[in-house]
């Protein structure tokens, strides 16, 4: 028999299951072993972070011009302050730095346009970024035309050189990589084996031997009397190396497109290049973007190797500044600065690629 037909008032959840205490209990202290791990983790954090904060922030010197201004026990950021121009622009002449800045700003604007999903005209902007911008950057950075003075490449350096190497390597490697990937899937045995050998060769050797090869053997390959700029040699090496990795990314993208797409296009009477250019590649490229960003990140980190063949990229110029007799003993500050710069670039790019992966992953995922 039911005596009471009225609804019971909703009661708040038991105090033990909501609020910060409950969160702590569920996530940090759910059992004895977990509690021990939490305490160990806290201790580790304390041991690592406290001295670092003390050294890098609290006891650090920030303002000044020479090493005499670094009187405290902590880090000496004065060193970075005094050298920041070199770290970013290398030995680029001071009066011409606006050219580098203009290139940076244009580049950033193009990338931002491409990266923000809401903005229109993506195809046109991409075409400008891939075809027009390299020419624009070349004329602006190297000069020699339109009344701009020539700035020799041995004066290029720092972050600017790092970006030049990574971006040029990437933009040049992309078309080669697409061709190699298409060749690898081709039914023509000679084309296929040529592409396989090419890709596997460059993927099998370390970048440093490629750079050695580019800097030592390339001059031998040229007709007698022709000399190649050192930066161009490094760029050739990086492009060849990168194109093989790019080819594998493109191949992955191509494999993700169902075969029916190409067959349907063939049934409409399209020839090979139309099938690829209008049907398969546009779909595949979209899937490839995260992979392309990931290879770009590793290329960006790998550009540091050019310092071994005598170019002064960001790490190279920091390393050179560390051996300056006026600023001996600040290697930690130098490396932390360079590391932070690289980290900011790589981390934001990897976050962007993760975001894209989530966006593109429209299938079922738990």
């Amino acid at each position, binding site marked *: 028999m039911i005596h009471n037909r009225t609804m019971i008032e909703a009661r708040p959840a038991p105090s033990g299951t909501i609020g910060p205490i409950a969160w702590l209990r569920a*996530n*940090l202290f*759910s059992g004895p072993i*977990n509690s021990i*791990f*939490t305490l160990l*983790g*806290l201790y*580790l*954090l304390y041991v690592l972070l406290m001295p670092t904060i003390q050294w890098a922030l609290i006891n650090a010197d920030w303002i000044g011009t020479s090493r005499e201004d670094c009187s405290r026990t902590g880090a000496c950021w004065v060193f970075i302050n005094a050298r920041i121009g070199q770290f970013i622009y290398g030995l680029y002449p001071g009066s011409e730095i606006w050219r580098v800045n203009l290139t940076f700003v244009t580049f950033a604007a193009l990338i931002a346009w491409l990266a923000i999903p809401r903005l229109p005209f993506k195809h046109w902007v991409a075409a400008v970024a891939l075809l027009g911008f390299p020419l624009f950057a070349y004329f602006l950075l190297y000069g020699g035309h339109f009344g701009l003075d020539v700035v020799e490449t041995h004066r290029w350096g720092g972050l600017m050189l790092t970006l030049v190497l990574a971006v040029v390597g990437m933009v040049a490697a992309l078309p080669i990589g697409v061709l190699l990937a298409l060749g690898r899937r081709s*039914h*023509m*045995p*000679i*084309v296929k084996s*040529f592409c396989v050998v090419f890709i*596997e*060769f460059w*993927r*099998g*050797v*370390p*970048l*440093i*031997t490629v750079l*050695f*090869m580019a800097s*030592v*053997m390339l*001059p*031998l*390959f*040229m*007709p*007698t009397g022709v000399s190649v700029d050192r930066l161009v040699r490094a760029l050739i090496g990086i492009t060849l190396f990168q194109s093989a990795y790019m080819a594998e990314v493109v191949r992955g993208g191509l494999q993700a497109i169902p075969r029916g797409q190409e067959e349907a296009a063939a049934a409409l009477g399209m020839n090979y290049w139309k099938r690829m250019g209008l049907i398969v590649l546009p779909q595949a490229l979209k899937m490839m973007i995260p992979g392309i960003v990931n290879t770009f*990140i590793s290329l960006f*980190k*790998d550009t*540091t*190797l050019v*310092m*071994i063949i005598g170019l002064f990229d960001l*790490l190279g110029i920091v*390393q050179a500044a*560390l051996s300056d007799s006026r600023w001996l003993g600040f*290697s*930690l500050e130098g*490396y932390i600065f*360079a*590391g932070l710069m*690289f*980290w900011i670039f*790589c*981390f934001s790019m*990897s976050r962007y690629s993760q975001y894209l992966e989530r966006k593109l992953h429209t299938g079922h995922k*738990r």
Partner: protein
Amino acid sequence: MSARPKVPTQGPKPPFWRDPAKRALVFQLLLVAGVAAFLLTIIGNTQANLAARGITTGFGFLNDTAGFGIVQTLIDYSSQSTYGRTFVVGLLNTLLVGGLGVLAATIVGFIVGIARLSPNWLISRLANGYIEIFRNIPLLLQIFFWYFAVLRAMPSARDSMSFGEVIFLNVRGLYLPQPLFESGFGLIPLAFVVAIVASIALTIWNKRRHEATGKRLPAGWISLALIVGLPLGVLVVTGVPVTWEVPELRGFNFRGGITVIPEFLALWLALSIYTASFIAEIVRSGIQAISHGQTEAAQALSLPQGLVLRLVVIPQALRVIIPPLTSQYLNLIKNSSLATAIGYPDLVSVFAGTTLNQTGQAIEVIAMTMAVYLTISLLVSMFMNWFNARVALVER
């Protein structure tokens, strides 16, 4: 009644440029001709350049005396040795740092990757922090950090950091005690081998018995006890035929013991830490790739948590983990070539560096160096393909 339109079965033959087979042939011939022309130009130019510089090609230089010393050698080597021996010394040093790096990176990577999945919020965040910090900083920078900012900043030999008065760390490297084996020590490796064979036999017997009778012994624990206990027992019975040579400060430096040079330490630390961050991500995504239904099904069979992991999750996760893991191992070995930046005597440093500079035999030296890395890569890829074919799920 209905007149079907006549379909021409044999039309006029298409012109040869519309025939895919013939077009492919022409295309490939063009490619071959292009590559051949390119190679011939390069070879011609190279010969002209080499003749102009007075360099003779060939591998005869490998028998010449090298005339430079190497700071770390695994085989006998002196400045009187040949360039050929330099090559071997460099190769062995590369393999040493590569092998130890793979070992350390695997251990750290698996621990961090599993910690990343821990239900403990703090532990999982810490593991994530490790991954995000170390994989987004160039390896070369990390090597420089460990070498110039940490190990080069160590105290001098007189004020060495000491760990229990047996291990010493100073600016010249890490000094470890060296075991000296006396006669009768040979029994211990023998006991170790016997224990391993016995535990394999035990496992097989246990599995058969389990299938036949449903009873089983805790074979894992027994094997562990055998493998640890038997050599230890032999060690005690034979009266511990090992003495340790502890490094000692004499004058300005340490004598005795094993010296680990700082270049090796820096390279090994940086390689392991850097690669471990990638391995951790691979392990995490491998475990997460196993569909939750698998775990739930195993739990529904009332398997205990340990067995769920061991029998259901890990075997499937390994299938996902191992291919990218091998490519990380390859990356580590290739990245060990950065040794040249801090002067660790690996293959690239002593062979493609010093030897190339002394002899000028750029083509031979670079070709040999690249061939070594290519061989390693190809061997590992072949193993991978074989492994993939073996473990691949057979569907439909």
